[in-house]
């Protein structure tokens, strides 16, 4: 373990510090609130000669991801950052990055998608991209955003993975919120991420290759099956990388973070910053003798189905908190609920689960909101009656 240097940083700055330490070959990015600070800080490092990165100030996010695809295919270690509509504009290239098996690392500072226009946090941007074939990390704090960014490089570039990684944190809430963040020594990060050695590189002129070529009825299906295979089997690799980072940093990196789950009767499953609020409420409830718990997956793709199901299977009632809507899904539920309930069903666990849509467009989620959800869960656990499948936290009635 090496000693981290703790300093007050906002989550965006924490990520740009990670990028400085990683010192990627190429960063191509376009500014969008609330991601701007990530790239603004990083471009200062480029201007000051602190990093060796080729910084490409492109004209749009579509161009940003296109440049990343080109640079990654050329053999470079590549990073970028975006949010909300910027991520939406990258859409076409997200699938291309994954399909070409390019280990690009993208920081997302989650923000609501327009319309109506809103710059504040929810997960509709990255959740919309959940089927693009990327690996998705979600961070509760600026510290986790920093940690995940560094792990993401090792995960993406692992020879048995070779897939792009999206590392998400909550816009403004952690992105602009200043907190205590521990930075590893530069040398330790440099050693942890190592040198990228691509299997194929367009600039390796001794071994010329063609990438992104015609892939018709004869092989496209086989290549998609391979992508599925990688995502189906990469969880142990991500766990091993996380373990390595845990040993290096001394900070817990469990894929599914549990609090109070050993004997929880009622539990909430939630991603990112709202997990912190939920944990604080759980602490208070447990002090009153209520067996509450919280499950926070750090990873959404691949979905750690078995781990989450194992964590909640002995509960009497479970709530999922979704900061996005899968419009038109059953009862208008959210993506985390869809994945969790399908995991429960397919692993043969039957228990009442309800979904709470919360925090859309940056709506504050207060401890009292979480308390009301736990009160509902207690009622479900006591009566055995599930009631409304999808509910809303903090929505004016």
């Amino acid at each position, binding site marked *: 373990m090496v000693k981290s240097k703790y300093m007050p940083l906002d989550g965006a700055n924490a990520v740009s510090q990670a990028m400085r330490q990683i010192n990627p070959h190429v960063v191509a990015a376009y500014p969008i609130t609330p991601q701007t600070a990530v790239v603004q800080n990083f471009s200062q490092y480029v201007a000051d000669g602190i990093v060796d990165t080729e910084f490409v100030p492109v004209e749009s996010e579509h161009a940003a991801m296109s440049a990343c695809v080109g640079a990654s295919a050329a053999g470079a270690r590549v990073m970028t950052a975006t949010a909300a509509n910027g991520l939406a504009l990258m859409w076409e290239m997200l699938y291309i990055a994954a399909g070409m*098996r390019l280990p690009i690392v993208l920081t997302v500072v989650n923000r609501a998608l327009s319309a109506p226009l809103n710059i504040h946090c929810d997960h509709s941007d990255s959740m919309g991209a959940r089927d693009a074939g990327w690996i998705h990390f979600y961070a509760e704090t600026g510290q986790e955003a920093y940690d995940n960014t560094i792990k993401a490089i090792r995960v993406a570039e692992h020879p048995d993975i070779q897939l792009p990684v999206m590392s998400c944190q909550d816009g403004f809430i952690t992105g602009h919120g200043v907190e205590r963040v521990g930075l590893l020594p530069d040398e330790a990060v440099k050693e942890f991420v190592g040198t990228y050695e691509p299997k194929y590189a367009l600039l390796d002129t001794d071994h010329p290759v063609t*990438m992104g070529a015609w892939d018709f009825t004869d092989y496209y299906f*086989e*290549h998609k099956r*391979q992508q599925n*295979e990688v995502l189906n089997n990469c969880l142990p690799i991500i766990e091993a990388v996380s373990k390595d980072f845990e040993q290096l940093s001394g900070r817990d990196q469990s894929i599914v973070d549990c609090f109070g789950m050993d004997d929880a009767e009622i539990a909430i499953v939630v991603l990112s910053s709202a997990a912190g609020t939920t944990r604080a409420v759980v602490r208070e409830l447990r002090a009153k003798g209520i067996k509450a718990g919280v499950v926070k997956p750090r990873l959404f793709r691949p979905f750690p189905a078995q781990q989450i199901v194992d964590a909640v299977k002995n509960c009497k009632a479970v709530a999922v908190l979704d900061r996005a809507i899968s419009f038109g899904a059953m009862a208008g539920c959210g993506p985390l609920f869809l994945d969790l309930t399908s995991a429960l069903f397919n692993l043969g666990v039957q228990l009442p689960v309800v979904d709470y849509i919360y925090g859309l467009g940056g709506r504050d989620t207060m401890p009292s909101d979480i308390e009301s959800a736990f009160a509902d869960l207690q009622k479900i656990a006591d009566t055995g009656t599930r009631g409304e499948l999808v509910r809303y936290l903090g929505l004016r009635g």
Partner: protein
Amino acid sequence: MAQKQAPRLDLPWRDARPGGVVIESGNSETYVTGTWRSMRPVRDMEQCTQCLLCWIMCPDAAITVQDGKVAAFDYDHCKGCGICAEECPVNIKQPHSVTGQLGKVIQMIPETDAE
């Protein structure tokens, strides 16, 4: 020219090269695209002036040239786009040797009518 190895089209999914990376150079030559054609270009060799505009314009390099002269259409790769017939600048004086029509040296006929 060395014989190009055709890519295998029967590999199981586990053996396909991830990401569709192609490591054999120039193997598109072995990929026969002529079967896509619905219209076939035909040339009246006698009346062709050998201006080579068709050779310049063909997007698939499907017009073969020998000793500076147009030799034939490569029907394994010609997709029948008709650009050669459109660009052909020569209005023939005699009926076309294949179609029997006046018009250009290169004309398009339905693939179903071709031998």
